C-alpha cells in the first residue's frame, strides 16, 4: 500500500475511532460513589466496637477507613465546588465576590459531608 493510501486509511481510522462523550449521569454517579465511600468509612468506624480496639491487630482497619473516608470526601468537595464554578462566575460582581462565593460553596459542601 502506498504512503497516500496509508494516510487515507489512518484518516478513516481516526473517523471510526472518534472519541466518545461520557453520559452526563456518569459524573453524578462517580460523585455518589465517592460519597458512599466516605459514608461507609464513617459507618464502619461507628460500628467498630471499642472492645475490638484493645487488640492492636485490629487497628489497621479503622485507620484505613478514616483515610479512605477523608480522602474521598475532600475530593468530592473539590469536584462539586469546581462543577459550580461557571454558575458562581455568572453571579459574581467582582473577583472578591467570586472568591467569597467559592469559599462559601466549598464550606457548604464540606458541611454536607461532615455535619
Amino acid at each position, binding site marked *: *500500500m502506498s504512503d497516500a493510501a*496509508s494516510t487515507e*486509511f*489512518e484518516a*478513516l*481510522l*481516526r*473517523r*471510526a*475511532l*472518534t*472519541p*466518545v*462523550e*461520557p*453520559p452526563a449521569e*456518569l*459524573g453524578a*454517579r*462517580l460523585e455518589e*460513589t*465517592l460519597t458512599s*465511600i466516605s459514608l461507609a468509612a464513617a459507618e464502619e468506624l461507628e460500628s467498630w466496637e471499642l472492645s475490638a480496639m484493645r487488640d492492636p491487630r485490629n487497628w489497621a482497619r479503622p485507620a484505613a477507613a478514616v483515610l*479512605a473516608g477523608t*480522602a*474521598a470526601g*475532600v*475530593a468530592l*468537595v*473539590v*469536584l462539586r465546588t*469546581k462543577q459550580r464554578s461557571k454558575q458562581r462566575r455568572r453571579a459574581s460582581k467582582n473577583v472578591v465576590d467570586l472568591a467569597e462565593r467559592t469559599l462559601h460553596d466549598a464550606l457548604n459542601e464540606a458541611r454536607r459531608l461532615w455535619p
Partner: protein
Amino acid sequence: MVDPDTAEKARVDAQFAELYRQHLRDVYSYAYYRVGDHHDAEDLTEQTFLQAYRHFPRALEESGGRPLRPWLIRIAHNLAANHYRDRSRRPQTHIDDSTVLPATHTTEDLVEGRDELKRILAGVQQLPDDRREALIMRFALGMDNREIARAMGRTDGATKVLLHRAIKQLEGIVDAKAKGGDR
C-alpha cells in the same frame, strides 16, 4: 491558621479534580472501545478514577511533572484486563454505530463510507489486545508514541513498531472483508 497538611491535601485534591475534568472523556472513550458496551465502560471509568484517586499523591510525586494521562490509561488498562480475566470474556463486537458514526448525511457515498467505518471498527475488535489498545490510544485519544509507550510499559521504539504492525494488520482485515463482501 491553616494546617500545612490540610493545605497540601487541598492542593493535591484540586489537581486531581483538574485531572478528572480533563481526562474523563479520554478514560471513557478508552473504556468504551476496550470493552465495547456503555454499561461496562461506565463501570470501568468509575473504577479507574477511584483507583487513581487512591494512588494520586504517589503518582504526582513520581511523575516528575510529566503528564498523568498515560498513568490514568494504564490503570484503566489493568482494570479492563482483570475484568476479562475474572469474567472469562472477550470484548463485545457490537459497538453501537449510532454512538460512534455520525449520521448527518444521506448520500450514497456516505453510506458507503459508513460501511467502511463499520468494517474498520469490526476489524479493530479482531486485533490482538496490545495492537487494539495501541490503536485506541493513538486514534481515539490522540496520544503520541511516548504517551502510549508509558501507558503500555514499552519503549518508544517498540511502540512505534507495534502501531505500524497494528495498522498493517487492520488494513489486511478490512481489505479481506471488503473483497469478501463482509462474509
